[in-house]
């Protein structure tokens, strides 16, 4: 595969990946392809890409576990305004992941993905752990020994709950929905939040 064909593929991979990619892991991604590029070709293409980004607002940066595309720190001033302007909100994916961990703990990432029908990015789990709402509880004894997640005491504190039992059941959520389609469970819980 020549470099002109390889480079945009690598760019797409770096852009989409939620974690740094090493030359080896990229090499593996092509395994089985008719035109599998060699590691040297990959390395070469990465270096050409790095040069290409010299005038860009992004850069391809080598970190411990591989290469990743990142915003150049020089543009921090402007980028940070994106958050000043609008208070940040969590994505739907994050909220759903948190809800599933809260209601179905202990639960693995794979189980969350099964229920949601989409992959859960590592970033989401990372954010939830950084916020100290979610923690690993151990490993499930199945193939791959995936981590089991649960909520923390900090989670309960944040939501002003004494225990998980205070979370309404799904049936309650739905019942309320039917009587107050707009308000849903707002009224009931508003008081207890702040």
């Amino acid at each position, binding site marked *: 595969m020549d470099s002109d064909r390889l480079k945009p593929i690598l760019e797409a991979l770096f*852009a*989409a*990946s*939620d974690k740094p990619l090493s030359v080896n892991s990229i090499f593996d991604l092509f395994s089985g392809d008719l035109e599998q590029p060699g590691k040297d070709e990959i390395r070469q293409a990465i270096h050409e890409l790095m040069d290409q980004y010299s005038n860009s607002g*992004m850069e391809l940066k080598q970190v411990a576990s591989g290469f990743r*595309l*990142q*915003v*150049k720190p020089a543009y*921090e001033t402007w980028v*940070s305004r994106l*958050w*000043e302007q609008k*208070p*940040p*909100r*969590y994505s*739907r994916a994050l*909220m*759903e992941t*948190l*809800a*599933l961990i*809260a*209601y*179905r*703990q*202990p639960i693995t990432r794979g189980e969350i993905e099964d*229920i*949601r*029908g*989409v992959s859960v*990015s590592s*970033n989401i789990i990372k954010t939830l752990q950084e*916020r100290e709402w979610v923690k690993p*509880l*151990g490993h*499930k*004894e*199945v193939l791959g020994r995936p981590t*089991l997640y*649960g*909520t923390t005491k900090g989670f309960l504190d944040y*939501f002003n709950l004494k*225990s*998980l*039992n205070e*979370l*309404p*059941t*799904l049936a309650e*959520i*739905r019942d309320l*929905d039917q009587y107050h389609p707009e308000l*849903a*469970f707002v009224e009931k*819980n*508003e008081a*207890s*939040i702040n």
Partner: protein
Amino acid sequence: MQNFTNNASNQSEMPFALVQGEPLTVIPQDLYIPPDALLVFLEAFEGPLDLLLYMIKRQNIDVLNIPIAAITKQYMEYIHLMEELELELAAEYLVMASMLAEIKSRMLLPRPTESADEEDPRAELIRRLQEYELFKKAAEDLDALDRLEREIHLPDIEIPKFEIDMPLPEVQIKDLLAAFRDVVNRAEQFASHHVEREPLSVRERMVRVLDKISADEFSSFYDFFDDKEGRMGVVVSFLAILELLKESLIELVQSEPYAPIYIKAIS
């Protein structure tokens, strides 16, 4: 789907099912479906219009020249078959059957010649079929568009940590509940996953048990039961331990009958 197309041409002789003891041989030529595949087949249709459209297409019938009698016959046989197999038959299919029957009966009536006012009884049906086909196609086209999460991915580009404090998002409990409701509703609609309602108390207790035990040493089974919690509390603890055992998260050890039971995490 392979079955009924391949078998279509030479299937008229063989009884294809026994219905109340009677061999059922008269089946629509192009609709030979093994009975156990019928459910799958039925699920492939979005409704009576879709089924009708399929029958018309498969037989290469000009939509403007539908042999109403033949189609009605097929359609009715199809419905009988659904009944025999005790499939839950949507009312819409019956409505469509009666519409076909009505058209058929009107076609049988002698029509005054050269009457411009008299609408062809098939017109309404054809109009509906065409309109449905139009949107069926539109839905396929829409489904084929590049879209997020499938062909289009948003870049996940690392942002260097800023000096300024990025405020953390505020979340209210109602947002959390809404998220849970959404994900459960969606899971129920799109997949066969069943998010069964389990008492939360058991889940919570499972976590508490996991927190308390370690893989290195044994904890006494009895420490997980507190009389003060009453019968319910004891039951919840017991269920939690059983559940953890089922998920192979813990192991229970008892050296001999009536000896103390110990719990330890599976390392």
